[in-house]
């Protein structure tokens, strides 16, 4: 499982970074989304992988922490999902506004000089 997930993180990150360096604004926004998947999964994986052990506690009594997934990376990623949604929305609107102002969708607002 670990090998597959780390390979997946690598592929998502590589695709995201490649798109991030492209000249069209839509490419950059898709790249940001892919990169945020990779980073969220990475942070999440730092709590180690656990199957069938969601951090839902019994009501009272003794708790053995080893029997549950680490809740801290999950809480961090939950915040990260919200913030990456917000940045995506903001970037999308900036993209639309820039497109309206400059007439093209290049990230610099003008086509590369030949």
């Amino acid at each position, binding site marked *: 499982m670990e090998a597959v997930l780390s390979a997946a993180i690598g592929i998502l990150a590589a695709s995201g970074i*490649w798109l991030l360096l492209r000249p069209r604004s839509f490419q950059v926004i898709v790249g940001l989304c892919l990169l945020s998947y990779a980073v969220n999964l990475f942070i999440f994986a730092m709590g180690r992988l656990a199957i069938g052990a*969601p951090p*839902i506690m019994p009501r009272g009594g003794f708790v053995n922490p080893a029997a549950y997934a680490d809740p801290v*990376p999950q809480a961090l990623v939950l915040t990260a999902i919200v913030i990456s949604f917000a940045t995506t929305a903001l970037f999308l*609107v900036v993209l*639309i506004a820039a497109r309206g102002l400059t007439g093209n969708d290049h990230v*610099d607002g003008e086509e590369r000089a030949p």
Partner: protein
Amino acid sequence: MIEENLILILALLPFLAAVIASTLSTTAHGAAAWVSGLLLVCGLVILAVLHGPIAAGEVVRGTIRWIPSLGLNLSFRMDGFVWLFVTLVFGIGILVLIYARYYLSKTDPVPRFYAFLMAFTGAMVGMLMSGNIVMLVVFWELTSLLSFLLVGYWHQGQAARDGARMALIVTGAGGLCLLLAMLILGQIAGSYDLDRVLASGEAVRADPLYALVLGLFLLGCFTKSAQMPFHFWLPGAMAAPTPVSAFLHSATMVKAGVFLLIRFSPVLGQTELWFFAVTGTGMLTLLLGSFFALFRHDLKGLLAYSTISHLGLITALAGIGSTGAILAAIFHIVNHAVFKASLFMAAGIIDHETGTRDMRRLSGLMRYMPFTGTLAIVAAAAMAGVPLLNGFLSKEMFFAEAADWHNGTWLDNSLASLATAAGVFAVAYSLRFIATVFFGPPPEDLPRTPHEPAAWMRRPVEALVLACLVVGILPGLTLGPTLNLAARSVLGADLPYRDIAIWHGINQPLVMSFVALAGGIMLYLVFGNRIAAGPEGPPLLHRLRAQRLYERALLVFTWKLPRSLHRILGTEHLQPQLRLVVLLAFSAGFVTLWGVLRLAPNPVGNALNPAFALMWLAGAACAMGAAWLAKYHRFAALVLLGGAGAVTCLTFAWLSAPDLAVTQLLVEIVTTVLLLLGLRWMPKRLEEIAEDKLLPARLRRLRDLVIALVSGTGLAAVAYVMMTRPPVPNSVGDWFLRNAYTEGGGTNVVNVILVDFRAFDTFGEITVLAIVGITVYALLRRFRPAPESVDHQNQRDETETEELAEALLVPSVIMRWMFPALIVMAGYLFFRGHDLPGGGFSAGVTLSIAFLLQYLAHDVRWIEARLTVLPIRWMGVGLLIAGLAGMGSFLFGYPFLTAHAQYVDLPLVGKVPAATAMIFDLGVFALVVGAIVLMLVALAHQALRIARLQERETARPPEKVAAKLAGKMGAR
């Protein structure tokens, strides 16, 4: 106790005056002057009251506890030296106020002037009375800043702006050096308290850092007191209104440097380094300053260079550092302030009444203004050091010190001759000032006919000149005791009383004085005409000016060098910047982890499930496909992006993170809809761009591909190594797991962390979401769509729209029916949140999806006629609920966002969790609904706006539209 309060009031008074003056109307000339003046008089009264304890040798202290936990206090202290100086500042301040009242024109914004002047006085007094050396530097820099504002008061003139900026840069940079010196001094002394620092002279002088401290300290003092080679800002600052010059450049600002030199001479002084650096610089400045003053044609320029030379004299005395020298230095500070302030005021009167300050045009003014002329002559004689005037006494004391033996070095031996030479120049320039301006033939072609000024404009000068005479004739009775008190507070309490008398018999200083007088008169008689005919500045040297060097350095360092650096290193393109960010992030990780990152000896892990591998095969294919297609096939790329997101979501569900899975799924839906709405505004890209196939483009892509692959591989390697390490026992996560139910009252630990343990983070996060929502809304309000997107709208004809509506009939009915179901679903997610996966955030997203579906199913107008959502109110109410829920804990004496958990028995329903964290979660819910709906509706409304625009255009007759368009074109 009373004294402590008085000293605090004294420090506050000028600032109070500044605040009051700044609130007055711009035409309230009299009121601003009266308020400032009366408050300064109050200050003098306080000083008179304080004189008793000070004269008894006490040091009066006042402290405001500011940040006691850090040991930071605003402490003020006053001893004899400070008392004398503060009295001088207040006294001359009042005279300057009276003078300014008549000097400034009716059109000047006067309250601003008085506010700056009073704030400056406050800063100066604060600097003098500071009991903490760091606070002293703060007030010191404040005087630099306020002098910038005062010198640049007539900011319409280029000279004023340049002069102000130059003064600020030079004195401000010196202040930074002083700050460094004070920090090191504080470290050596072990305290920033002035008394402690003053008492630790031995330790400071023995410290290996002594030379560094001394250098930095002297840089600060020399820049402030206009010592060579930093003197050039002072003539530049003469562009200030004359009251400012009379105050700043005689009694206050420039005296701050020598004040500090004298204050710290027991700590840093008494070494050979100190003597050579301070006395050497002082003598150089004294000699060159008086020499240069002789060649200035501008009245205020002459006075400025004269000020520089007198400051040099005081500096030299501070460098000598003997008892007599310190006494003479303090005496000369007072004397110079008195006669120089009156001379500046006299020069201002002459400028005011004749319209010029050029000595080559002025002549014979004695006929027109005999009173002012007499006053100026007496003051100038004091400046030259004529007997029976105050300037003579302190100069005499200086000559005595110069003639004395101190340490037998070459500098010490040559002091007497240097001092006499400077005295010759001083007499010559004073004589030139008097002879050219007040005597000789009547002036020709002056801008105004000269006459005596308003009586009250002359009163301050009269008072100052009277002081010159009284002190000059009766020194022992007037200033003697105060001066001894001041010297005693600098050098130590056991100092013997020194009598200040006019007549000491015929001795070397007296001979030097007469040599200087005779030499100066001779010099002027021989060279007077030639100087008047020469250029502004000394012969040969007038081309080489420190100011030019400064200007060139400023140009190079603040303009040319940054520009060329920016040209070489900077870029305005986004791609290189992003590439740099990626590479920097990669290198940071690489450098940190290289050699450290290795597999755990016995890696842990879960057995591979083939379904998981297959799932990620599809996910990876989706990611790469999205990367491949994002340029030409945006819609396909969007679908593939959704695929990668779905696989991520499934992974969360698989690996025991149900909360993440739910949230990711919901956010995925909203993101996809947002991007779909945005796609409509992208330009068409049907044909391939030809340039993309050329070699440079291919090389660029190859380079980026390498960067991406290397970074991705690195991240994968780090992830694998970390995942296979055994978990750390007793981590913070374990604490949360153990205490979530007992402390937070919920069984879903992730939710308890978010709304209870770390609720403040969540509060910040939802605030960010609200800010983004409002920003999106604001950006889209002003957005004008690209013309071709509008044309595209035109082409869609009526039949096409109808066909589409028919095709969507069944889905739209289903979507409408989904509305109540989704609301129930949102409620369900919300209420189970504390114990099971769900919570305010996912419930909020669900509800906004419900609204969104209605917008998708129907025409925007149809839906808005039936359903009113006020997203901004949702957001505001949400933030308010969350904030109030947090503040509720104040009522019970707990810190912000402390939660309380309890189960409540409801009839029929049974036990339900009722934690206050749920109220907070309700706020999160409302805010999320508001923010998401706001963004989506703002995007959806773009289409509506264009439709409205078109309706308006078609409603009008075509020619009218054409005319309007033509008008628009013409207007551009």
